[in-house]
């Protein structure tokens, strides 16, 4: 006998494993006896235990490596044996993870990410809310911000910023209209921007009477001035005023867009004009609650001190970035992000269902492996490795999908932004930390569910006998409940998708009421150098004449707004005989008023439908005339002919002259906002020459070739006048309908993803329930049940939750989509077509996904089952 304590022996027997266990334990015990004789029993016991622990640790290390390699081999074998489950699981995770990361990525980029500068997380924006209407606007005046600065001593910095278009004239290039960012000098400090040449704005640049100054962006400096440092100190003309360039910003410095030109916001601007976005940086340690309370107090005080500007209004702190997109879009983006989270959870639930099915099918194999001596840890480890394989594929797929989606969105934002980058803080891209968090959750839940499912099957102890499946079926009520929720979510999002898809389809196929092919357009804004109507008219007539003379040009027109392109065209219009009190302008309807030249309709392939069009006789001295379009005539005159009646157009300076209606214009879309009224009137340009005009020329052949012609013709007439928005009519329409094209696709994507996940979930649930009832089906088949009967029984297990889910989903969808009416292009939010398509898709896909596993279950053969038993 060695004298080894029994407990030490048991510890050793428990810890040391392996094929040579007996010999190792024997050696250790024999060596213990030798050591006990040499140095005493206690020291020998300590040595023995230490040796056992070292042996066990070494075994675990080498065993893990070898075991993992074997597990990976087995996992691949399982993958080949049941590719549907594994590929299905990977696909579900790909979609769930990819769409969730994509949706959250958009929301995060626009609303959460914030300014990536020191203390950027302390920067918020201010907005004004009208208490009565509940509307919220992000625009404040300089006086407003001054009041905030004085009344709320919680801010480290305050700044104002806003964009406007200015006319640039210099010797470096053709005259141009460019975006100018007007800012208070403090914005530079807030953005931590430095100049590469010259200086930033200082306090001396803002007082009235100080020289006008400007700063250039690095890119604009490089492109227009070839990075000439000598530009600093030189004078350029901005809106006709001499302005000295005092600096060039460092590379990449921008704020709301490309921001080529930065101008100081100071005493020259109207201090009470509410047209600037206000940023404040909270002092260290100040929380939002304190700011909210202080702003509420200040709003009350201002309402009593300066009621004319403040009554019914209150200042609000809003999170940085949310003001730019407006509260409605912010809500939608938040909804998008939560929808992404919902889809992610749906994906996890579906994967759980898939692995429940897999564990059920493998119950026999797991029980056999356990029975022939495989330890629970090794079985569990193998299950974990097996689950990791589809989970890993899903993670890679999800990352690729999200990256591709966000990459597309980034590109689309540039395309639909006319090539101008969005605000500096908006960066669409795969955020590593978000993805890692979501991926870790997906991996963990997949592995844990797989382990639980395996342990559940092992714990059941049977090896797939024909009996004992009833309780499991009943216990799967949770799975069915989950399915109902999934189908409901799928139905809601699918309805939204269908509506947006119909809108996208309408956008491609809609008849705008005019021909867009072969039309090139541009815009000229005459500005201060054309102070009177005569000068403006002379310019327009000369331009029309010169363009008409160009070979290949079929017709030319100038208008304050081209069809589809609203351009400051909404006016209050009074129809003679319309009853109103003559005082309250709000009583007058608002419609489009477009000032056009006689060839307007011809250029767009249309002709007046009643009366006459404008002609060369409709000039300033002749009787004021107007055309009304068909919807206008219908609304105001019904079946009566409008010709001979009179209308007048109101502007800020009062009413225009009464004009006789001489004709009825065809219905041509006057705006891309389909929710607006289509009614409008046309006035002859010779009787009301505007300060700006859009030009359209109808040409033979490719209109793109005439862009240069348009620029050159304008330059010949006035070298200082810029021509902007030079593009073909389809390009112009595409740019103006970007809302529908750019913002809808993420919602369409989540809707289709939701359908896919609902279908996958249904497939998994029906598969699982069918697998549980395979014995029952075998017996039923043996006693004469037809195949159709078995299919019906298998599929019916999920019929009720599917039907309830679909009903709830479409109902909820009809409620949710009301908030999206502005995004729906010519689609009624309750479009029967969309609802029908949603129901059909939902019913079709859920029926297919439940019938497929039901069909498989119906092929069961009792004899085969008994043989397997």
């Amino acid at each position, binding site marked *: 006998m060695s004298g*080894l304590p029994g407990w030490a022996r048991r510890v050793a027997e428990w810890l*040391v494993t392996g094929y*040579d266990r007996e010999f190792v334990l024997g050696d250790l015990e024999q060596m213990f006896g030798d050591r006990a004789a040499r140095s005493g029993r206690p020291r020998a016991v300590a040595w023995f235990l230490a040796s056992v622990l070292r042996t066990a640790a070494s075994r675990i290390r080498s065993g893990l490596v070898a075991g993992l390699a074997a597990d990976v081999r087995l996992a691949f074998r399982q993958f080949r044996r049941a590719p549907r489950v594994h590929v299905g699981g990977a696909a579900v995770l790909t979609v769930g993870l990819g769409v969730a990361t994509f949706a959250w990525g958009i929301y995060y980029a626009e609303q959460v990410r914030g300014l990536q500068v020191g203390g950027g997380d302390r920067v918020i924006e201010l907005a004004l809310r009208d208490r009565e209407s509940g509307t919220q606007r992000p625009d404040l005046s300089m006086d407003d911000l001054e009041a905030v600065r004085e009344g709320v001593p919680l801010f480290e910095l305050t700044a104002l910023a806003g964009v406007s278009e200015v006319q640039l004239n210099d010797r470096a290039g053709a005259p141009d209209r460019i975006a100018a960012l007007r800012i208070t000098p403090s914005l530079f400090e807030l953005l931590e921007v430095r100049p590469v040449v010259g200086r930033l704005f200082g306090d001396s640049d803002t007082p009235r009477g100080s020289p006008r100054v400007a700063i250039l962006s690095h890119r604009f400096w490089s492109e227009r001035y070839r990075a000439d440092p000598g530009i600093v100190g030189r004078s350029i003309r901005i809106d006709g005023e001499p302005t000295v360039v005092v600096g060039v910003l460092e590379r990449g410095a921008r704020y709301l867009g490309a921001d080529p030109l930065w101008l100081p916001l100071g005493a020259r601007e109207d201090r009470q004009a509410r047209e600037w976005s206000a940023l404040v940086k909270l002092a260290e340690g100040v929380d939002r609650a304190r700011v909210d309370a202080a702003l509420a107090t200040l709003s009350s005080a201002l309402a009593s001190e300066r009621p004319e500007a403040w009554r019914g209004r209150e200042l609000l702190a809003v999170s940085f970035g949310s003001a730019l997109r407006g509260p409605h879009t912010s809500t939608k983006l938040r909804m998008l992000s939560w929808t992404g989270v919902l889809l992610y959870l749906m994906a996890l639930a579906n994967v759980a269902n898939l692995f429940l099915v897999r564990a059920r099918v493998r119950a026999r194999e797991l029980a056999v492996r356990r029975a022939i001596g495989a330890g629970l840890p090794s079985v569990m480890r193998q299950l974990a490795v097996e689950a990791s394989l589809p989970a890993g594929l899903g993670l890679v797929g999800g990352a690729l999908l999200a990256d591709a989606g966000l990459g597309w969105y980034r590109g689309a934002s540039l395309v639909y932004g006319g090539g101008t980058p969005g605000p500096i803080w908006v960066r669409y891209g795969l955020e590593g930390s978000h993805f890692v968090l979501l991926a870790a959750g997906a991996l963990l839940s997949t592995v844990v569910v797989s382990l639980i499912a395996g342990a559940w099957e092992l714990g059941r102890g049977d090896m797939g006998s024909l009996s004992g499946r009833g309780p499991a079926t009943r216990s799967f009520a949770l799975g069915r409940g989950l399915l109902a929720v999934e189908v409901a979510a799928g139905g809601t999002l699918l309805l939204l998708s269908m509506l947006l898809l119909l809108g996208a389809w309408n956008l491609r196929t809609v008849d705008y009421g005019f021909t867009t092919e072969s039309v090139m357009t541009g815009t000229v804004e005459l500005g201060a150098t054309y102070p009177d109507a005569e000068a403006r008219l002379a310019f327009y007539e000369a331009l029309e004449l010169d363009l008409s003379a160009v070979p290949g040009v079929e017709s030319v027109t100038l208008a304050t707004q081209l069809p589809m392109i609203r351009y400051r065209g909404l006016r209050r219009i009074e129809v003679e005989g319309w009853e109103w009190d003559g005082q309250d302008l709000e009583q007058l309807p608002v419609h489009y008023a477009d000032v056009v030249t006689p060839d307007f309709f011809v250029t767009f392939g249309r002709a007046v439908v009643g009366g006459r069009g404008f002609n060369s006789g409709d000039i300033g001295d002749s009787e004021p005339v107007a055309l009304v379009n068909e919807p206008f005539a219908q609304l105001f005159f019904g079946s009566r002919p409008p010709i001979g009646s009179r209308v007048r157009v109101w502007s800020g300076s009062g009413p225009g002259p009464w004009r006789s209606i001489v004709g009825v214009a065809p219905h041509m879309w006057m705006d891309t906002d389909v929710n607006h009224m289509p009614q409008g009137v046309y006035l002859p340009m010779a009787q009301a020459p505007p300060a700006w005009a859009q030009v359209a020329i109808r040409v033979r052949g490719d209109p793109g070739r005439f862009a240069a012609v348009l620029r050159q013709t304008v330059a010949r007439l006035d070298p200082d006048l810029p021509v902007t928005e030079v593009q073909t009519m389809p390009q112009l329409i595409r740019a103006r309908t970007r809302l529908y094209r750019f913002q809808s696709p993420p919602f369409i994507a989540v809707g289709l993803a939701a359908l896919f996940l609902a279908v996958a979930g249904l497939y998994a649930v029906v598969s699982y329930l069918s697998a549980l009832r395979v014995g029952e089906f075998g017996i039923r088949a043996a006693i004469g049940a037809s195949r159709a009967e078995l299919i019906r029984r298998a599929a019916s297990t999920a019929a009720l939750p599917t039907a309830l889910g679909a009903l709830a989903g479409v109902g909820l969808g009809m409620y949710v989509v009301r908030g999206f009416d502005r995004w729906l292009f010519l689609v009624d939010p309750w479009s029967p077509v969309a609802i029908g398509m949603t129901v059909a898709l939902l019913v079709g896909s859920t029926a297919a996904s439940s019938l497929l596993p039901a069909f498989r279950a119906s092929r069961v053969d009792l004899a085969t089952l008994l043989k397997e038993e």
Partner: protein
Amino acid sequence: MGRVLGELEQLLLLGLLRAGGDASGIDLRNDLELRTGRNVLPGAVYTIMERLRTRGLVFAYTGDATPERGGRRRKHYRLLPAGETALARAYGQIAAMAEGVEDRLRTLLEES
């Protein structure tokens, strides 16, 4: 030519050769410790000897159980001709490389 023998493999095969071509796992371990001072775990010895067995260099068989081992059996190993050849080749390589520097090596050993 098979895979080159590792250092411990060579030492254990040498131990087996010294024991007359037949020894138990614990004897090999104890001999290794006595001669080289290397304190390896019994488990490591069996892992290496199992590797040598699968390569056809040694033959393994089980002995009788004894009380001082808690009633457990010993595992014995016998050197096979292929094992002898592999050992000779490995030793030959060391000897060839050490030729001419034996004195220097001996000095270094004494100093260490």
